[in-house]
């Protein structure tokens, strides 16, 4: 987050570049782009103070369409470049777009370190559970047994959950949303933007060409109420069309279950209350198996802390305060010298 105050009124057009958008018709990336472009004007950051950084993949083409500064880098390395940008100029607001391949396959290490360091950049991971740009191979988030061009007999890997991974990396803000849920997605983006420190938001994104309907089981209109649970801090973890289902923890077995209010004597006081500051709870919610449990959306975890870039900047400032502004002549003549 940057502290620069906007000096002019911003609209969606201010954030839309003149480049032709080159995603497949029907791709979920369009919806995300639209929500981002709609949300940006509300954040109070001028386009010239904003940088969008990405790796390689369909999702990583995103920066071309934002009328801000943008850097379409190399596969998996966006976190390093974004870190360099933020450290070099902490006044910039840095967003990063990555994919499940870019961010979790080749780029998993950089993502991990970026999150644990709490670099103040906002990361959006478009998870379509497939490699789109290379025309459809399975990704680290694809379900085991996935049949793709490279795995005609099914993939042999256990998938990774991006939210679980981010929690394992000590991320200071972890959220999840869905491409087509414009309102929810907009809220998550706003939350991320306002969080002081690094943020990680997974966005389920449909690749209609190579992995169509990957999220239909809980994204579709007719099932979503029963199959999604929206996390809200301080509120009981209820879901269902009439909010009569809820999550309950057995304190003895340390196991979670879905219960229905009114059944078996269950009341709201039996239901877990969401606490964004509790990493263990976040972890448990992210690990709920589907479809036995609903899919959790919203902010899993958010606790602000010191950022890497702030600490780095402080050291430079502190060092100037303590040692005085560097004097080259003094440096060159420091230690033992002799004169001829």
């Amino acid at each position: 987050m940057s502290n620069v105050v906007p000096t002019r009124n911003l609209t969606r057009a201010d954030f839309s570049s003149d480049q032709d958008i080159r995603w497949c018709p029907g791709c979920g990336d369009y919806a995300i782009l639209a929500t981002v472009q709609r949300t940006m004007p509300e954040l109070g950051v001028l386009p010239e103070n904003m940088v969008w950084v990405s790796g390689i993949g369909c999702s990583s083409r995103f920066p071309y369409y934002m009328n801000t500064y943008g850097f379409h880098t190399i596969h998996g390395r966006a976190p390093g470049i974004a870190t360099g940008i933020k450290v070099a100029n902490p006044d910039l607001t840095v967003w990063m777009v990555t994919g499940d391949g870019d961010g979790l396959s080749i780029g998993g290490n950089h993502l991990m370190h970026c999150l644990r360091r709490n670099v103040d950049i906002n990361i959006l991971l478009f998870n379509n559970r497939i490699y789109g740009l290379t025309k459809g191979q399975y990704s680290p988030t694809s379900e085991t047994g996935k049949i793709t061009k490279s795995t005609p007999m099914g993939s042999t890997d256990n998938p990774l959950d991006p939210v679980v991974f981010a929690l394992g990396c000590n991320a200071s803000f972890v959220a999840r949303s869905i491409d087509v849920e414009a309102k929810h997605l907009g809220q998550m983006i706003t939350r991320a933007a306002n969080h002081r420190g690094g943020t990680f938001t997974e966005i389920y994104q449909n690749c209609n060409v190579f992995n169509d309907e990957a999220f239909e089981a809980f994204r579709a209109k007719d099932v979503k109420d029963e199959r999604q649970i929206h996390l809200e801090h301080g509120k009981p973890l209820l879901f269902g069309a009439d909010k009569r289902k809820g999550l309950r923890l057995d304190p003895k077995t340390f196991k979670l279950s879905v219960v229905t209010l009114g059944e078996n004597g269950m009341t709201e006081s039996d239901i877990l209350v969401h606490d964004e500051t509790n990493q263990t709870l976040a972890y448990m919610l992210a690990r709920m198996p589907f479809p036995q449990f609903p899919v959790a959306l919203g902010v899993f975890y958010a606790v602000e802390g010191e950022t890497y870039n702030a600490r780095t900047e402080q050291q430079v400032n502190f060092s100037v305060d303590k040692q005085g502004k560097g004097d080259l002549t003094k440096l060159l003549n420091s230690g033992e010298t002799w004169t001829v």
Partner: protein
Amino acid sequence: MAEAVQARSSSKAPSKIRGAIVRFAGDSGDGMQITGSQFTSTAAMLGNDLATFPDFPAEIRAPAGTLYGVSGFQINFSSDDVFTPGDRPDVLVAMNPAALKTNLAALKPGGLLVANSGAFSAGNLKKAGYAENPLDGDSMSAYQLLSIDISKATLLAVAESGLSTKEANRCKNFWTLGLMYWLYNRPLEPTLRWLDQKFKKTPDVLAANAAALKAGHAYGETAEISHERYDVPPAVHEKGTYRNISGNQATAWGLVAASQLSGTGLVLGSYPITPASDILHELSRHKNFGVTTLQVEDEIAAACTAIGASYAGKIGVTTTSGPGMALKMEAIGLAVSTELPLVVINIQRAGPSTGMPTKTEQADLFQALYGRNGESPVCVIAAATPGDCFYMAIEAVRLATKYMTPVILLSDGYLGNGAEPWKIPDVSSLPKIEVKHRTEVEGFHPFVRDPETLARAWAVPGTPGLEHRIGGIEKSFDSGHISYSPENHQKMSETRAAKIAGIANDIPELGIEEGEASGKLLVLGWGSTYGSIREAVRRSRARGLSVSQAHLRYLNPMPKNFVELLSRFDKVLIPEMNMGQLVKIVRGEHLIPAESYAKIEGMPFTVDEIEQRISQLVEA
């Protein structure tokens, strides 16, 4: 018993000699690096010219007494010009049997061998593979043996310090240093001052070390040594203030200087690796110069943070050694394609793969020039001496920011760890570096170029009206947008090449370091072979041979007069610590039948080796 130096009183005046080569060798725990660098400081302050060669074991702290645990430090100091740490020492100090075993072969016939007989225990002899004690019997008869129980003498000297025996024993390097100071008639004060500083917080250790130093000196003075003493008068140095500087320190300081000279902040992204880590260490101590150092997760991230910083308008730098360099290549390609300034510093070490991390080599030249996918031209420069690293680091920043390009600066373990007396430059004499960040909106696109340098505009985020997107896909010459057009790719490829080639107009011509401007033989070097070649050419010329030296600091592009200069000699010899890399380029680009002298032993050339090769070629 060997022809050992007899113990007797000696109060003769020291005899004047031109210079000497001394090698200290001992266990990793024996403090030989400190001994060597103290001896060096004192020699420097006395005005000697000098060069040093520290030779560490690969292990952090190898088990005591082992052959691979031996640590060495050689110094060549003189009243003449010194260009190398010297081939074979005049004096070898061997603190234990392993040190003797691994270093004796280097000692000049008839040279002085100082051995700590106290460490020649049965156990240590066995670890070093000696069946019998070599200090006994005749086996050292080719040398002047001075066998002293330094361990015991030290314990005695520091008895009053209250240190434990183990701690007390650690002082024996200062005892030895004291003895060497006596031998070369050097004052103790500089080292005593240094001890004062270093051990401020542990007065007992301070006192013990000082006592040991004095005792070693007194041993020579008062007692009992038949050996001659020497005086090495100061060298004739250019006027000025001098200091010792190692290549890695000079590199770090050059970067600090470049940041100051350009008024532009510097961001180092780095990942530790031998022998480059010291640049990171040194730079991290100078944050008050607006320098930011990031130790990141790997070499790729290191290159990428530097690129990010460059994109944001700072001087992005990344430092590493060979294997790390391999990992950075894809990212460097991105900087080539996006035409961002980036300084990449490779302190080369022996390869391939992990190779011999603590040994030196020059085998990454090809990698620097050609190690990326596609046609990916970058500027490549190389430092010749430890002090030269300072200037070449500044030059790397100047070229990177002026031409919006990665610049690879090659150094090596020998330069990085080696030190030399260095004349401290007057800051006002250093080149100004003009950094332009574009702000003008009119006519802007990200790949709009300076017609002269062909550099694209450096438009940094935060500048209103210059919002733009860049990336590693080919871009239109005319708009900077993505372009797959065949003609455009040709044009952009040629432009990238022309931009780098054009740097030739902005760098000094290749000069003659030593000798005439034409003749029978030119010895052409690059990088850390400078000193050995210089000395070898000098000596050969002193023998009347027609041979000259030129030394390339700019490897891509090469100086404009390169071909012309080479063509003035009948033959060209290129010594390299590799299997012959520069020589292939010289032949391939210029069809000049240069001869290769390739040596790949993880060690610098000796002067002798080059001198012999010169003789062969000139006298043939």
